[in-house]
């Protein structure tokens, strides 16, 4: 218990140091924008993404045959997180006319290709699993 208190105290001090850095190196206008970003990030995840996932899982459980659910779940986790992690690349929002070496890949076409391959893999895997006499679990 004493060790945990000590570790926790270290965490509090480190976080407060970060807050101090933040407050002293930026002005109140900048604090406000960061606060908005903090809130927006939490809302985007805790409300929008979470609700979307709950909805998707409900629909998936209704519509997908049992044998398809495991491959669809694996695909959703891998494809979904890859998509979210590469939003700045997929949108090419930071591209600049004067710099051809930046964001210089066909991101949208690649993403559609990846998505098509994922759908295909789920379909093949679901089909093969549904032909087995019994599901594995």
């Amino acid at each position: 218990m004493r060790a945990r208190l000590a570790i926790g105290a270290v965490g509090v001090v480190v976080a407060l140091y970060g807050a101090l850095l933040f407050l002293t190196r930026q002005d109140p206008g900048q604090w406000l924008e960061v606060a908005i970003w903090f809130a927006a990030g939490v809302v985007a995840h805790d409300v929008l993404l979470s609700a979307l996932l709950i909805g998707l899982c409900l629909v998936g459980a209704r519509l997908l045959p049992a044998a398809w659910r495991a491959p669809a779940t694996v695909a959703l986790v891998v494809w979904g997180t890859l998509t979210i992690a590469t939003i700045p690349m997929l949108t090419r929002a930071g591209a600049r006319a004067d710099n051809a070496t930046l964001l210089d890949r066909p991101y949208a076409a690649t993403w559609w290709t990846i998505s098509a391959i994922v759908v295909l893999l789920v379909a093949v895997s679901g089909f093969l699993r549904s032909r087995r006499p019994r599901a594995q679990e």
Partner: protein
Amino acid sequence: MTPRLAPPTPDSFTSRLRSPAVAARVGLWLGISFGICFLTGLVSHYAQLPSHPIPFPTSPSWGYRFTQGLHVTTGIAAIPLLLVKLWSVLPKLFEAPPLHDARKLLLTVLERASIAVLVASAIFQLATGVANAAQWYPWSSFSFRTTHYAIAWVAIGALVLHIAVKLPIIRDVLTSDIDDTTHDRETATTPGPLSRRALVRTTFAAAAVATLATAGSTVTWLRQVSVLAVRTGEGPQGVPINKSARAARVEESASSPDWRLEVVVDGTVAGSVSYDDLRAMQQHTVDLPIACVEGWSAQGTWSGVRLADLLASFDAPADRDVSVTSLQESGPFRRTILPANFAADERTLLALDLSGEPLSLDHGYPCRLIAPNRPGVLQTKWVSRLEVSA
């Protein structure tokens, strides 16, 4: 089915995948990722300080390239880990506070507040970090560098506190079988489409896929695999660029035949050299990486004059920091400080050539600084003045 308008409670979530057993296993690697990001981030900020209480080493020349490639790669790998980790603990968001017990209520409020800070700062760090890696700045007022640095301390502090609070349960679930139900919520009994083990493995696979899909910006042999990387690694003379001559507004001044490099020693102008003068000096060739703080890097073969040779020809003392000024008229990196140990290193050049050809305008023509183990943003292009301080 009657629509229910009441907010969900933890009992509304019945999947047995949303469990401490999954959260701790994914969280362990998420914590390690954040630790790596934090330490490699500190390295970068230290390297960019104008002066170093403990000298920043010039070797290995690829040190900065490695640590910053690791920083961005680990940050991207952390995105799938964070998303699954948060998914696995979502029911906790809807726990009712213990209103009847003031002491418990206070502790709960404090813990919830620390979790809110942790989640918000973690999302903020990953979102702003990956946006910065793609040079996208969808905010108007705050400085990425300052804020990402400050919030990193907040995130890592909140993470350490979270680990301290959860240590007993973390220890318990990590040392028991993943399907052990001791710490599960009572209603979390519905089998999911995957086993817990398969979900954890899928999460690690997702982290690996996100890494492979993007790491080619810095890992040369992954360029063909990294189909979603910010850069192909191609560019003029085989090396990408970050800031073009146009963006720096130096197209005219850098291509002017009147360009001269001025050398100032102890506050007085010691003289200047023309492009031809530099060409006439002894030339050296080095293989050094250009490694950007945004996580991309590329190896280049640079030729030019040793900085130490040039300074010696003006009788400048060799053990001093050197201020390097660019033709750029504005920008935070217009003038940079090259620490004395970097100025004295024989690999540090005022490069005139890249890949055997004169530097292109975007690579810093007429001459640029190239030093080992140095942040790319401090490898000043379009150099116009060197100052050796007293």
